């Protein structure tokens, strides 16, 4: 049959044959442009902002949030949310730190911390996937539980005296980049490949896009969700370990409000809280936008209260721009 497509929808779409393949990068490009604009403004207002040292500094300062936000993005794409990342990080931090302080090998301590993070995340995932509870509520509950565990374990006191051997591991540089920045760069590549080129990545998008259709198509829903939350927990733990190395101590109150920073980075980067949409590159750009804002305002000696204000404005502005540009599709 040679009938032309009869639906108007199909006709409009046929005008831009490869739009979808470009779509993700177009959205990411938008975030990038936003970042460039912000940087340009700060460069005009401050001589220091655009120096190599300061730019590396921004990346360094953003690396903790970037790390958490990559995991958050996975969860958000799968149609969920993880409010418990901060307390999960605290659990991982205090465990790893206490092992380090009592003389366990560095690598083993790090692995133990990461494992705790992954287990905490998987616990969230199991409650969500098998008990059918809402992600918001589950992770709101575990937010308290994990924080309490960290506080109980340490008696509320910070764990001090982390060995310098461990601290040096993250304080060194590869070429001009500090190790945490390199770690994040590796995570971006691994995360992007995982989302775009593995069955798990497709499953995460499918579960977030339409869970029932995914189920009928044979997607292992529970396993996919648990994997997403476990990754989020794992990456929160990794962020915690980077932070412990930087500070030389592990506070049980570490990671306060990390979840909000990470959600903000994901949202600025184009992840939809409805699920089924988002990108790792976008999220990283989002995290750097937030980091550059904070850095620039600090350089300009703007009071912290106004920094908070600016962060909020940037989030809303990014969403508005997103909304307006999508309206034209």
């Amino acid at each position, binding site marked *: 049959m040679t009938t032309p497509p009869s639906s108007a929808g199909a006709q409009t779409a*046929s005008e831009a044959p490869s739009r979808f*393949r470009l779509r993700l990068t177009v959205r990411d490009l938008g975030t990038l442009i936003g970042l460039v604009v912000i940087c340009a403004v700060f460069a005009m207002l401050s001589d220091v902002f655009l120096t190599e040292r300061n730019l590396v500094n921004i990346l360094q300062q953003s690396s903790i949030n970037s790390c958490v936000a990559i995991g958050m993005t996975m969860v958000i794409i799968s149609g969920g949310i993880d409010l418990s990342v901060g307390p999960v990080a605290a659990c991982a931090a205090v465990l790893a730190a206490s092992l380090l302080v009592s003389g366990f090998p560095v690598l083993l301590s790090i692995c133990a911390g990461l494992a705790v993070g992954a287990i905490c995340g998987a616990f969230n995932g199991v409650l969500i996937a098998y008990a059918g509870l809402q992600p918001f509520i589950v992770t709101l509950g575990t937010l308290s539980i994990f924080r309490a565990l960290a506080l109980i374990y340490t008696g509320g006191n910070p764990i001090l005296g982390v060995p310098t051997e461990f601290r040096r591991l993250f304080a060194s540089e590869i070429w001009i980049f500090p190790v945490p920045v390199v770690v994040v760069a590796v995570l971006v590549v691994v995360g992007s490949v995982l989302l775009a080129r593995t069955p798990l990545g497709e499953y995460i998008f499918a579960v977030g896009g339409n869970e029932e259709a995914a189920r009928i198509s044979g997607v292992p829903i529970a396993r996919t969700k648990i994997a997403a939350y476990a990754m989020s927990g794992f990456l929160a733990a990794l962020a915690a370990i980077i932070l412990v190395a930087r500070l030389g101590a592990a506070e049980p109150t570490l990671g306060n409000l990390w979840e909000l920073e990470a959600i903000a980075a994901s949202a600025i980067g184009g992840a939809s809280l409805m699920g089924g949409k988002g990108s790792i590159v976008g999220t990283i750009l989002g995290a750097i936008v937030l980091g550059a804002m904070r850095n620039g305002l600090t350089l300009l000696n703007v009071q912290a209260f106004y920094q908070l204000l600016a962060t909020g404005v940037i989030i809303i502005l990014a969403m508005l721009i997103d909304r307006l540009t999508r309206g034209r599709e």
Partner: protein
Amino acid sequence: MSADSRATAPDVLTMTGVSKTFPGVKALDDVSLDVREGEVLALVGENGAGKSTLLKILSGIYRADSGEVRLGDQPFVATSPKAAREAGIAMIHQELQQVPRLDVAQNMFLGAQMTSLGVFTDKAEMRARAREVLQRLDPTIDVTARLGTLRVAQRQIVEIAKALLAKARVIAMDEPTSSLTPHEFERLVEVIESLKAHGVAVIYVSHKLEEVFRVASRATVLRDGRFVGTVALKDVDEGRLVAMMVGRALEVSHQQSYAKDEIMLETRGLGRGEAVKSVDLTLRKGEVLGVAGLVGAGRTELMRLIAGVDQPTAGEIRIRGRVKAFRTPRDAIENGIALLPEERKKDGIVPQRSILSNVSLPRLPFLTRFGLLRRGLIRSRVRELGRNVSLRPLDIDRQIRVFSGGNQQKAIICRWLMAEADVLIFDEPTRGIDVGAKAEIYRLIEGLAEEGRSIIVVSSELPEILRVSDRVLVMRRGVAEGVLAREDATEQSIMRLAVTGAQLQGSNP
């Protein structure tokens, strides 16, 4: 029907030379129609023919670029939905816009509450007025009942009553029967007759041509946004009308049977609660088994059991003679069973993902090397499958949601071909799909059977069942009432089983 006697009744509404362009698409091009007092005019055409656009112009959601609309002898421009309502134009949407938590009377007065002392809503008065109007349409509806407790058919009548309450002169109904049972359709016909008797003009939009011939006296046909013609329905037959809609004649032949002896799928005493009760079913290789029955007869529920979506509480499923238990759809898929669900948007597609992602989803674990997806291989397989089912446009990177219903269905067929399913269960395969694409879906089903796959087609449209099936299983109240061989299956024999059950059926135990 007394339609002819009204042929000289005055026009209530005329639209002349109406055009509407959206960026890149001419949605309506010089379309005209007129409806007379007490008349039902059918508006027909394939999906994307411009019916919805026309209705939206009529109801003030869009403004026409050019052309004239006259209400009675006055020129009329619907500047907003409110203006259209006040001028006496009412829309009954496919998806009813009501508030389930409010009662019937409150819904009928939604946006136009009656008040006493200017502040308090006057419930008693609203209920009395609502009752008065409903009396004419369906006296069984209680105006104090919560709307959410009513069946869809009753809610629709409430919506029509609301239109009457607002003194509508023209009521446009967009696919009003999409979720009605045949019996409920009969009720709707009575309601429409009553509207006609009150001099209301009705514009009836439907895919189902049998209904159009039942209800309407004339039909205006649109194709690709253009006006094809207006015909008196007593002068044309269904084939002619379809030809006007699609611009070519469609063959309506009966499919050939490719059924072999080998039994692919059997259920024995399969049941779940009250929905499905002890169903025995046999499906052979290459066979197309139609499953008929009224809405609520348990057909979809039975299919969900076979496809592992729900768990049976009784009985067993055998694949090639072996007893299998499916805990998830994944288990069923591994055994070659695939479900193409009735509500594609809700259960079938991941809308924002590409055709590529949607089609390859069940097969992904088998398409990797070192844990990474073999993209080149997947792309070429999906493209080839898409070409085989003539997916249009053949752009596998495009989001599936922008494709027409028919092409989404083709993509889902590709999904299961890719997953190498042997048993494909189609639940309402052509719901919401336009006439041209329907024929394509039927041909695809026939092709699948010819390749030796086994097919189950659940459908509420008897012509569809009769067209595709080798045998027809008829369900009623969760029970398989009987199986009709192709030569015994007629609309009458199926309906008899579906409505009254086997006890009144002489043959075919």
